[in-house]
Structures are given as structure tokens and as C-alpha cells.
């Protein structure tokens, strides 16, 4: 297992958001689906150390990383593409991508190869290489954020709502790219766009009110009556 979460409880202030969540990811791609406010982003924030877990354990690559600082988790091999992208707006695409690799031991000495891979995946970034990121469109910034995460040569890539605010044609493009990636990297993706995400991942978890209510192979989940009724609008 690359990521193993057991009995995770977490929240903000006194308000609990996640209740006893267990989840595991091997060499595969996994979707985390659920409505707004179900706790998808909180789960990701707990894994990446952006919020401190209240209880339970998170193991990554055989090591306990529960409650570790975000930069330590990043250096261990988890790369995050946050919902809000969290890029460096005043810097160029080139600088943003370089920073993706600069502080990650796993990426040292491979920067050129990683950069080549990113530019092959997102050719538009090659054209915009010297552009200031803050002046780019939301969709392009999303691509920069994904590329920046890949520059870390991660073992696990986490994408929080990668299709948010993107036009549908770009959404399927992003998912096409993700299916290319999953050969090399384990992927955890949260999505409200359940149809697209279940098509391109191996397995899925359904999170509702801070608890896992369903899990299974993506093809089974797509046929599940509860998922069909709640998320696929059938």
C-alpha cells in the first residue's frame, strides 16, 4: 500500500468533519466522490499536513506521517494539486515548475527529464514558458499546478477538484492526461464531476457527511443504484 488511512477523525475548531474514515491506495488511481461539504478537501488537507488530524493514523510508503508538517510530507513523495492551485502568481511558468522540483530530494538530478515530461503532457506550457502565471487563464493555471506537482517526481499525486472552473472540453483533456499518468504514479482525485472521474480511475470511495458510505471498483460504483441516483442524475 502506498497510502493507508485508518480511523481518521478530523475537523476545524470544535466542529468534526471526518468521522472514522479508513481508506487505502496502492499502485492505482482512486477517486473520492461526494457532495459539497462531505469532507473531501478536509481528508486531503489531513493527508498533506495542512490540518492536524484529531485521531487515527496516516501511513505513507510504510512510514507513519500522521500530523507531520506539510513540507515534510511533500519531501516524502506526496504532491498536491490544491483546489485553489496555490501557485506563485508573480513568477513565470518556468520558475513555478522549477520550484516544484527544487526542494524535493526525489526530484534532484532529474529536473530536466521531469520538465520534458511535463511539457510533453501539457504542450501549451511550452508556448507560455516565460509568461507570468498570474496573467494566465484558470484552465492554464490548473495545468501549471498539475505540472508543478509532477515536477516533484511524486509517488502519490493528489488532485483536489481538478475540473473545478474548467470548461468541459478541458475537463476531459485533464482526465485524459491523468489516465496517461496513472501508469507511473498513484493518484487520488476528488471530483464532483463523478461521471468523468469514474471513467478514468480504477477504484472509488463515496464520502458523505464525513464518513465512507461506499467503496469499490470504479465500474461497479458507476452502476451502483445509490451513486446513480445521487451523482449521475439518472
Amino acid at each position: 500500500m502506498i497510502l493507508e488511512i485508518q480511523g481518521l477523525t478530523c475537523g476545524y475548531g470544535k466542529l468534526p468533519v471526518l468521522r472514522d474514515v479508513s481508506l487505502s491506495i496502492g499502485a492505482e488511481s482512486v477517486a473520492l466522490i461526494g457532495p459539497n461539504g462531505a469532507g473531501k478537501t478536509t481528508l486531503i488537507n489531513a493527508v498533506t499536513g495542512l490540518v492536524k488530524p484529531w485521531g487515527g493514523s496516516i501511513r505513507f510508503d510504510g512510514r507513519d506521517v500522521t500530523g507531520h508538517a506539510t513540507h515534510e510530507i511533500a519531501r516524502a513523495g506526496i504532491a498536491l494539486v490544491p483546489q485553489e492551485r496555490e501557485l506563485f502568481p508573480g513568477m513565470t511558468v518556468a520558475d513555478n515548475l522549477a520550484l516544484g522540483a527544487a526542494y524535493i530530494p526525489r526530484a534532484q538530478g532529474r529536473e530536466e527529464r521531469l520538465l520534458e515530461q511535463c511539457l510533453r503532457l501539457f504542450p501549451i506550457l511550452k508556448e507560455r514558458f516565460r509568461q507570468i502565471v498570474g496573467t494566465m487563464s484558470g484552465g492554464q493555471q490548473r495545468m501549471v499546478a498539475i505540472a508543478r506537482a509532477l515536477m516533484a517526481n511524486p509517488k502519490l499525486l493528489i488532485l483536489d477538484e481538478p475540473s473545478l472552473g474548467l470548461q468541459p472540453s478541458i475537463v476531459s483533456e485533464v482526465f485524459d492526461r491523468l489516465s496517461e499518468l496513472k501508469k507511473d504514479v498513484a493518484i487520488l482525485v476528488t471530483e464532483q464531476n463523478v461521471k468523468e472521474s469514474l471513467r478514468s480511475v480504477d477504484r472509488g470511495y463515496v464520502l458523505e457527511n464525513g464518513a465512507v458510505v461506499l467503496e469499490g471498483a470504479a465500474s461497479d460504483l458507476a452502476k451502483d443504484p445509490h451513486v446513480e441516483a445521487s451523482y449521475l442524475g439518472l
Partner: protein
Amino acid sequence: MANKRNRTAGLVLAAAVLGILVWRPTVLIYGLQAAGLYASIAIPMGLILGIVHIVNLAHGEFMMAASYLTYTICRASGMDPYLALLPVAAVTAAFGFLVYRLTIRRALKAPELNQLILTFGLAILLTQAANLLFTSQTRKLSFEYVSASVDIGDLSFGVYNFVFVAIAVAMVVGLRLFLTRTKAGKAALAVGQNPRGAAIVGIDVDRAYALTFALASAMVGLMGAVFITRSSIFPAVGSPFTMKSFCLIAMAGIGNIPGILASSVLLGVSENFLKAFRGTREWADIVFFVLIISVILGRSIRGKKA
């Protein structure tokens, strides 16, 4: 955009400077010297504001403390302040690091008002500590080289204060190299733009903040050592510099460190312009307020249009 703004400001300044140069050369000379002093004190504060996003209201007091430290060392050993410069900078760097670790770090996520109260409290603490240790009597070290002067034709002026211009320029160039060429500097720059994004790419944000704070404290400590070569010191000597520094940074725009040079020149030259005439001499202190009000007013009017 900041570059374009700097260029226009530069052009306007150059034209004004040329006019004054022909008419009253000393206005320009003393104006530049004052600008060097203002800028070299404001730049470290601008560094903290640009990267840690904290207004350090104890900034001038850090310098005052460094001046007293230099005074004590030089009095005890007979050493020149320029020899004490590096040890003093090392002590203030350590002091800045401790202040960050023990206080600032705990207020990073607090509301801005709490941060202001915290650093304001530090300022009072430092001033009163100096009062207790050294009393409110002014202290001075005298050196002959301070009164060095130069005659060009029938014009005679002191040149020592140009040392501040050199320090200010060296600070801007040095910081630029640090922030764009070194690993720690690039990390600090990234943290300044987006701390959350920096943590995600594996940068230790807390370490970058501590380093920035220590570096800025070292710079202002160095200024404290140089400051005492030309001015007498007393416990409240730093506080006007806190305010002037903050306003110079606000005029330049937060994060625009070369812009601090330009705004300092504007302030220094206009102050000395008024000082050059008997009738307006007492008005020199008001320039500062006129400039800051008009810059902020201008910016908010432009902001409303955009």
C-alpha cells in the same frame, strides 16, 4: 507593472534632479545622503513585510538597540564601530531569530491588529530597557572621518554621509542576488508570494520566515553600528525611523524593494529642498506627511478607476 511604475517615477525624479542640480547643488547632495540613510533603514523592514507579511513596529528600536550595543563595545575596547559592525550584525541576527521564534511565530495566523500590538510592545520593551540600562541621556562617539568634506569650485560639502547611499545600494543589489540566485533566497521569495503553495512544494515555511527575520535584523543591526558614527543616540532615537521606513515602503508598494530607493530619494531631496530656504526651513518635516498622503490618495483614486 512595478517595473513600469519605477521607470516613470525614475524619469520624473531625473528631470527634477537635473533642475535642482543646476540651481542648488547642495539640496541634491544632502538630499541623496538623507535618502541613503532612510533607504538603508527601510529596506530590511521592507524585506520582512514583503516575505513574512508582518509590520515590525520595533524596527527602528532594533537599530537603536544595535547602536547601544556598538556604543558599549566601542567604549569598552576603543574599537572603531566599523570593526564592531560584523559582530553587532551577528548579535542582532541571533536576537531577531529569537524574537521570531518566541513571539512573531505565534502571531503569524493571528489578526493583523494582534501582530501590530505585539511588535509595538516589543518596541516599548526595547526603548524602556535602553532607558533603564543607559538612562535617557544622549550618547555619542566622535570620529574625525565623519567631518570629511570636499570642495568643488566654491561649493563645499560633507561627504561622509554618502556611506549610507553605498550601503542602501549594496543592500538592494545583495538582496536581489540572494533572492534570485540562492536556494534559501528562492525559497523565501516563494514563501513571500504564497506560503501555502511553498509548503506544498516542500519548502520549510517556518525556516524561511526565521531566516528572513534574522537576515533583516542583521541588516538593521549593521545600520545601527554605522548610525552611531554620525549621530548621537538616546532610547527614543529609533522610533521616527520605524514610521518613516513604513511610509517609504507603503509609497514604494509592498514587495518592491528597489522602489524604496526611489521613494527615499523623493523624500530626502524634497526635505532638503525646503531646508535650503530660510523661510521654509521649519516646514521640512511636513514633506514626509504630504508625500505619504498624496501617494496613498493617488493610488486609491487610480485603484477606484481600475
